[in-house]
């Protein structure tokens, strides 16, 4: 356990250092309006004084070691810098948007994980045609990038059929949420708006879960303990769910850790398509404005969040599987 914690602490430290060094190592200067990439929209509107002020604000006029100490100090205070395009503290801007992305991430991971695992179990258990259909479905889904999946769903279910809203996180000009019914109504409204973004992420994420659960269940299909369970006269469904499925549970659990980072990337893309007011849309706006402090904060928080999720999963994993680790 101590080694595990040390490993993750080292990784976290490396991420914090990387977040500091990356902008300084890479070519290009965000404050240089004449940079060769010629896309520094934010910088080109600044006067020389404003530029010098920003340089001083980011301590870019000091020696590197001093910059690093100041960077750590800011981080310790929860200060992630000042957004160039929105003129507000990055941490505040992110705090406002984080719930949307977290809700999207968690629901889609849970649905993709449980749904995918059940589908994989079904394929492995039934075999034959069913299995082939499951594998074909799963691998076809994997061939569609998230943004295309999002556009296809938007086009068919929102534009075409009108079942879901075109964009946004909630209905604009909706009556304020007051009283128990108002809150419920607001909640239903948000769910309705997030349904398609979440569905996109589920479809894009589920493949790995399907294939992994299927493989895990297939690996135990011929085990004697299943024959024993059947010999006891247990119904087939019971044998599948209570005897075979638990074997698929552990690998599926670890896959959550592997997928968190990918789903985060997917959320960024999907939020842009559906204009969900979360971190993803914010990131997209930051890219357009070349708002580097925001991109840096998203990278830092995203990486640390993914790391934390992995640590939590690993601890759970060790609880469930005492053979692992040591």
């Amino acid at each position, binding site marked *: 356990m101590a080694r595990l914690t040390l490993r993750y602490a080292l990784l976290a430290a*490396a991420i914090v250092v990387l977040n500091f060094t990356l902008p300084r190592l890479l070519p290009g200067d965000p404050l240089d309006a004449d940079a060769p990439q010629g896309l520094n929209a934010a910088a080109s509107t600044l006067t020389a004084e404003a530029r010098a002020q920003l340089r001083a604000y980011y301590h870019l006029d000091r020696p590197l070691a001093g910059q690093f100490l100041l960077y750590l100090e800011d981080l310790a205070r929860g200060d992630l810098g000042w957004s160039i395009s929105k003129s507000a503290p990055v941490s505040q801007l992110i705090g406002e948007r984080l719930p949307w992305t977290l809700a999207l991430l968690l629901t889609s991971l849970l649905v993709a994980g449980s749904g995918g695992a059940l589908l994989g179990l079904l394929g492995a258990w039934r075999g*034959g045609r069913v299995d082939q259909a499951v594998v074909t479905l799963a691998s076809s889904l994997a061939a569609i990038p*998230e943004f295309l999946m999002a556009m296809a769903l938007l086009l068919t279910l929102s534009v075409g059929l009108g079942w879901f809203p075109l964009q946004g996180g909630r209905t604009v000009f909706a009556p304020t949420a007051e009283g128990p019914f108002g809150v419920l109504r607001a909640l239903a409204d948000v769910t309705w708006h997030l349904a398609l973004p979440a569905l996109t992420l589920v479809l894009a994420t589920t493949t790995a879960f399907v294939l*992994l659960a299927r493989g895990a269940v297939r690996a135990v299909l011929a085990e004697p303990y299943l024959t024993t369970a059947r010999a006891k006269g247990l119904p087939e469904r019971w044998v599948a769910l209570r005897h075979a499925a638990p*074997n698929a549970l552990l690998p599926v659990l670890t896959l959550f850790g592997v997928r968190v980072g990918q789903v985060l990337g997917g959320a960024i893309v999907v939020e842009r398509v559906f204009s969900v007011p979360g971190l993803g849309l914010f990131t997209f706006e930051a890219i357009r404005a070349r708002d580097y402090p925001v991109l840096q904060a998203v990278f830092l928080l995203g990486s640390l969040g*993914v790391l934390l999720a992995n640590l939590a999963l690993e601890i759970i994993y060790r609880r469930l599987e005492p053979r692992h680790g040591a």
Partner: protein
Amino acid sequence: MEPEASGVGRGALLGGAILALALAAAVFAPALAPHDPRLPSGPPLLPPNPAHPLGTNDVGQDILSEWLWGARSSLYVAVAVALLSTLLSWTVGLAAGLGRSLEGPLMALTDLLLALPSVPLYLLVVALAGASQQNVVLTLGLLSWPAFARIVRAQVIALRGQPYVEAARALGASTLHVARVHVLPSTLGLLPAKLVLTVRYALFAEATLAFLGLGDPAAKSWGTMLGWAFNDPLLFGRGVWLWWVAPPALAIVLVVLATTWLATALESAQEHRAGRAAGPAETADQPEPARAEGVGGTLARPRAGEAGWQ
């Protein structure tokens, strides 16, 4: 169930044909394109007509020409990233597997890169370095090698205990010689899978970056086309998407599917050659990779037919 041999063959054939078509479009784009994709050649948002078989976009550029040149841009990035990433995977895998002193730092770097969520990292790096085609290739290529470096290293570690490798060492062969003559050839079985998977991965990644606004405006790819099209707020309100969005979208999906089929065929061919009793599907999705730290612990994970950012 074990896929029928003819099914795999058909998949490989179809995949190969699609890839060949896409490559032809990429190579002969200058000859095939009816217009210069960078210049407006008609009124904006023209529906398909004889002069513009796929109509024009919002600034009057010919979409068919854009699409053909987009094939060139997309496939160039995909292939260049695959080559760079493969070279690095093998270099790191061999060095970490054979060089005692290198193993620690190289594996630490591998662990770190595998722990980072790729999209936020790529967005930051490409935004900072500038969204040129060259920077996209370098970013994706330099950051996508870890998963396979681990796999190569695992195989090298299995090989380095083999009697013939020990014999070579006992005879005084240098590490470089052992790597080149005795170890490298035995790891090359992984090569086709890595190349194909990375082509697919790079295609995805490039398209996603381009869609998010980090495409090279001077070398528009299929992803860039989609990103630009999607900036039009009325895109889906009219029929425009049918000839503006569908062609690049279908191209991306078809090429990705084609590489998947090809990868599956290559894998099963390899397994048949290796004379394994188990069917391809049997070994492909063993629960093996499910090690807690296991971002791509074995070949099984990247093989599992997933979207695969890594």
